[in-house]
């Protein structure tokens, strides 16, 4: 095996494609930006005015210093008093104060708008991800969902926090200074503006190069992070299989890739910054040389020359920040691109505009020609017709891939049927509000995610208004009470740290209690008892007899004993129902698949 291919090959996701070098945002990003900023239209106008005043006052300082030297000093030398100087000083003082005030206003205001936008964006993303269908989440994976809402939002935060202010100041300084220089003295101004082409060239070069370099650093650091986090989370396997040396090799390599990428980026800055400096210093030198000549000839005053030197200093300083800013801007625009892509994602299981109310469901389900496929042309369910009466307990039996779980997911409306209908109490599921639907139908699967918090909190998730007594009653009903009170803090035991303390079976019991507390009209159990040991499962089964008595239930299980409590058994094969009847009927028929199974089972008991 050759070393470099340890990562293996994977399909690129559109959102993971390297971000483009272009500064221009795509339409959708611009739309997103527009909709985020729209509420702040007025505030932004005020902000523009404030920023103009601030920069005007800031740029006036060197001019006033020059004026002070040229017009303030001669009267004093001539002994005619210092009124002119004091006047100029007065104006200067006013400018300094106004600048401070406007600066303060600008920083707070732009900070507030930034934070407002960020808050809005965070909430929009969160809400949108929650609304998107399970189909989307299946494909997009939780890792991407998380990184969209963390690192991408952080990139935008970074831009708002550090880059924004710097860019505005740099641009206004650039333009403002150029104007003032020309106004102060046209010839000297033109000479100093000779540096513009050089600056432009240097900045363009840097922008292009750094786009590539920074992209490379982001890519390489992502690999370092993934490798690191997976090593830490998989430490048990790493140590048990003496993986350390190979891991160290791989890590050293990805770490060095990151170093090399960083070094390239650093060196670009290492050329850019002194580059700006050298252009600035040469300009300064030329201005000094030429300015001195002109002052010598009496064409300009010393005050003007001083103002020039001061302006040039102000001129080049913000340029240095541009390198920092560009990196932030680039990550932020790539992030915005990804976020806007997600936000434009349509709901594949849309909620109805005008839902049919169903405050108190009975639990009658009906499949009417219901067809479904994940991939067009490969139907999982070719067309089901089943009626399930309210209160009936159904066991779904069939091989892996027969479509049992798919059927369950349709009932939970994780997906919508491609053809036909699926109704609850005669109402198409597509017409029910999310609230009514979820209150009526609850699905418990093998995947028993527990949230941060106590055991009680996790059970309460089934019914946020539940009292402690209700929670305990639910746990007792399921047979989880005994193990819970044996935990260090009983019901208040924290399940955090990757659910460390609870075994898979215990987590399943908690998930069960949660579903029981939710008290839905229709309960779907998809392999919900697979991690339980036999005694716990027996307890759950005993509980199920009472729990399921008043409600419709669909149970998918491998074990025959679980199936026994069903009123009716549906045997599935290739997405179709091949047998349908009470357990007794199916066994009696003596020739069906279920009956074969049952016989085999009886034989094993002997």
């Amino acid at each position: 095996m050759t070393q470099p291919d340890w990562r293996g090959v994977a399909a690129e996701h559109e959102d993971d494609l390297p971000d483009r070098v272009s500064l221009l945002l795509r339409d959708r990003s611009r739309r997103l930006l527009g909709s985020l900023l729209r509420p702040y239209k007025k505030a932004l106008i005020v902000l523009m005015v404030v920023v103009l005043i601030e920069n005007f006052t800031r740029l006036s300082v060197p001019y006033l210093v020059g004026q002070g030297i040229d017009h303030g000093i001669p009267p004093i030398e001539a002994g005619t008093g210092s009124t002119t100087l004091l006047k100029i000083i007065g104006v200067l003082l006013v400018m300094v104060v106004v600048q401070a005030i406007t600066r303060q206003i600008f920083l707070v205001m732009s900070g507030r708008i930034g934070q407002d936008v960020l808050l809005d964006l965070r909430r929009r993303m969160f809400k949108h991800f929650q609304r998107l269908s399970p189909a989307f989440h299946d494909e997009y994976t939780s890792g991407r969902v998380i990184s969209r809402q963390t690192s991408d939002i952080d990139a935008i935060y970074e831009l708002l926090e550090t880059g924004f202010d710097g860019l505005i100041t740099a641009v206004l300084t650039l333009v403002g200074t150029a104007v003032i220089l020309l106004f102060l003295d046209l010839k000297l101004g033109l000479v100093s503006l000779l540096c513009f082409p050089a600056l432009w060239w240097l900045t363009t070069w840097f922008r292009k190069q750094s786009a590539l370099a920074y992209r490379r650093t982001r890519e390489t650091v992502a690999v370092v992070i993934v490798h690191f986090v997976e090593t830490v989370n998989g430490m048990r396997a790493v140590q048990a299989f003496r993986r350390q040396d190979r891991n160290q090799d791989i890590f050293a390599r990805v770490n060095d890739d990151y170093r090399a990428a960083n070094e390239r980026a650093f060196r670009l800055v290492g050329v850019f910054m002194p580059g700006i400096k050298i252009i600035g210093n040469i300009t300064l030198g030329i201005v000094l040389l030429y300015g001195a000549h002109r002052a010598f000839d009496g064409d300009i005053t010393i005050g003007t020359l001083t103002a020039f030197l001061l302006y040039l200093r102000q001129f080049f300083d913000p340029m240095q920040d541009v390198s920092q800013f560009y990196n932030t801007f680039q990550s932020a625009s790539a992030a915005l691109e990804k976020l806007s892509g997600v936000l434009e994602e349509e709901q594949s299981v849309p909620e109805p505009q005008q839902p049919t109310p169903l405050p108190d469901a009975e639990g009658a389900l009906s499949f009417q020609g219901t067809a479904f496929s994940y991939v067009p042309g490969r139907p999982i369910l070719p067309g089901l017709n089943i009626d399930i009466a309210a209160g009936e307990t159904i066991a779904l039996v069939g091989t892996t891939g027969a479509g049992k779980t798919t059927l369950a997911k349709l009932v939970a409306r994780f997906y919508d049927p491609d053809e036909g209908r699926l109704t609850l109490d005669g109402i198409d599921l597509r017409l029910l509000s999310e609230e009514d639907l979820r209150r009526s139908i609850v699905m418990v699967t093998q995947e028993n995610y527990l949230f941060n918090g106590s055991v009680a909190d996790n059970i309460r998730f089934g019914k946020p208004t539940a009292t402690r007594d209700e929670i305990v009653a639910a746990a007792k009903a399921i047979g989880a009470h005994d193990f819970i009170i044996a935990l260090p803090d009983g019901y208040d035991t924290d399940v955090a740290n990757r659910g460390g303390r609870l075994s898979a079976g215990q987590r399943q019991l908690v998930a069960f209690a949660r579903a029981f507390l939710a008290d839905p009209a229709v309960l779907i159990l998809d392999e919900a008892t697979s991690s339980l040991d036999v005694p716990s499962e027996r307890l759950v089964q005993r509980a199920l007899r009472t729990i399921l008595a008043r409600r419709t239930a669909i149970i998918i299980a491998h074990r025959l004993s679980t199936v026994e409590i069903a009123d009716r058994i549906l045997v599935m094969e290739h997405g179709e129902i091949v047998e349908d009847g009470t357990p007794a009927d199916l066994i009696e028929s003596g020739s069906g698949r279920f009956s074969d199974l049952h016989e085999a089972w009886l034989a094993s008991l002997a």
Partner: protein
Amino acid sequence: MPSSPIDDPGTLEDPTTVRRPAGVHSIWRLRQYMRPYRRSLAIMGGSALVGVFVSLSIPLVTKQMIDGPIAHHQVGPILPLGLLALALGITEAGLILVRRWVQARAVLGFETAVRDDLYRHMQNLPMEFHGRWQSGQLLSRITMDLSALRRFMGFGLLFLIINIIQLLLVTLLLLKLFWPLGLVVALSAVPIIWLSKRFESRYVVVSRGVQDQQGDVATAVEEAAIGYRVIKSFGRRAYSQANFHDKTQTLYETSMEKVRLSARFWTFLEVIPNISLVVVLLLGALGVGHHQLTLGTLVAFITLMLSLIWPIESLGVILAMAQEAMTAADRVLDIFDTRSSIVGGEVGLAYASGHLRFEHVDFHYPDSEELVLQDVNLDIRPGETVAIVGATGSGKTSLTALVPRLYDATAGRVTIDGVDTRDLTLASLRSLVATAFEDATLFSMSARENVTLGRPDASEEDIRSAIETAQAGFVYDLPWGLDTRIGEQGMSLSGGQRQRLALARAVLASPRILVLDDTLSALDVHTEALVERALQQVLAETTSIVVAHRASTVMLADRVALLSGSTITHVGKHHDLLATVPAYRELLAADADSEADLDGHRAGVMQR
């Protein structure tokens, strides 16, 4: 806390994390990583220092220009002085180029070396450590803390020194040029430094608050993403949104406080030099008017004064950077100072028959006194397969974790061929033992890399046969076959597929002792039956411990050990235990739970 002795005689420190106050001391302890770059550091320091002198001399040339040729109408010196200014300017930029170029290699080399070592150290810390530390905590150390250190080493430290030198130098120069004005400037530094100190301490508090709350928001995001299906199933969208709303609101408020705080600070930072500029202009102009200083001096003075703004302003930032770096160094040392409580011994067993014994073994987790295992005795003969049966939470997994020393027994001992596992080198022990875990850990790497985890040099033939044993042939059907990336960043696999890969991984390691920790739980019964059939041959030659829930799995074993009340109460044949031990019957009896799974028996009838 772990009570196992520390084998390394060189360490007297507590094996767990030791908290010390952040200090320069912490950074100093990392100096060895800078050692290869001593020359680079010298060049960086030298060029920065020379750069200060050069940049300070430019305004002095300006002064000469104004006071000399312009004031006295001499055309001669204009050109040489102008060229001198140009030369100085180019030199200054050149020095920056040299410094940055050298710095890139040195500080990145430092950062990379520390990260490599941290990773190495961390990989060898025991599970006890990893159970205690969240991965995010470790990650922030190898990313954020190391960048903080890198920034300080390459920039902060250098400019802390350079800026102070520049400050002193310029102030001296200003005092020499015209002392009353120099005094004004020197005095104006006082409020700035005072303000910076005050700001820094408050800023640290607020920005730490922002960081923590960002963490809270990230946790909420993570939970909602991973628990999405549960939230969806129970229709708790509004609830999780409300929770997210609260957290983002708190973050918003703290962030605004940070905005206001830094707005005020940066404004003040700009106002003070401006005010002193006004004062200098006023006094300076009056001074020139009364012939106490020349015009050239005033211009030079003002330019020099402006060159002070940056060093003073940045002093606050650099001090914060230094503080940050010290904390970072401290956090990094937290890891380096944690000694492994599980250290290998001296004995290397080249060959072992695989005779595994538990002798009076007690075990409890480090953060609890409650014994999970108590006085466990079990003797597994070479080549024998023993099933461990016990109720949920009875300590089966803990028992199996003791064999490869993921944890150490707190009393008693585990031996292989009569040698205490603690006397074996870790490499030797862990090549003798391989475990297939219930929740298979997959890495975002190729399927091949995942399977060959314990044996990177396995031949294609070995891989194929291990995959066959584990019934994991599906990997060949992945888009790029064995080269397909799986795990979080690649193809996602079902629980059953993951378990089969984990099994293949364990089988491929061809250990003397194989531990199967409920490895087949997520398989459908048809596949399980196939795996069991294939496994029988492997188990026949290997000493094995099989954690089992189902009778079918127990059938793989020669003997069964019943784990109950933290200890092994019965050992015997499945049928004997079934007949004589009620507790065992309770757990595995056929009349309570049919093992005649529907799929399993259908398996014979249907084709794949």
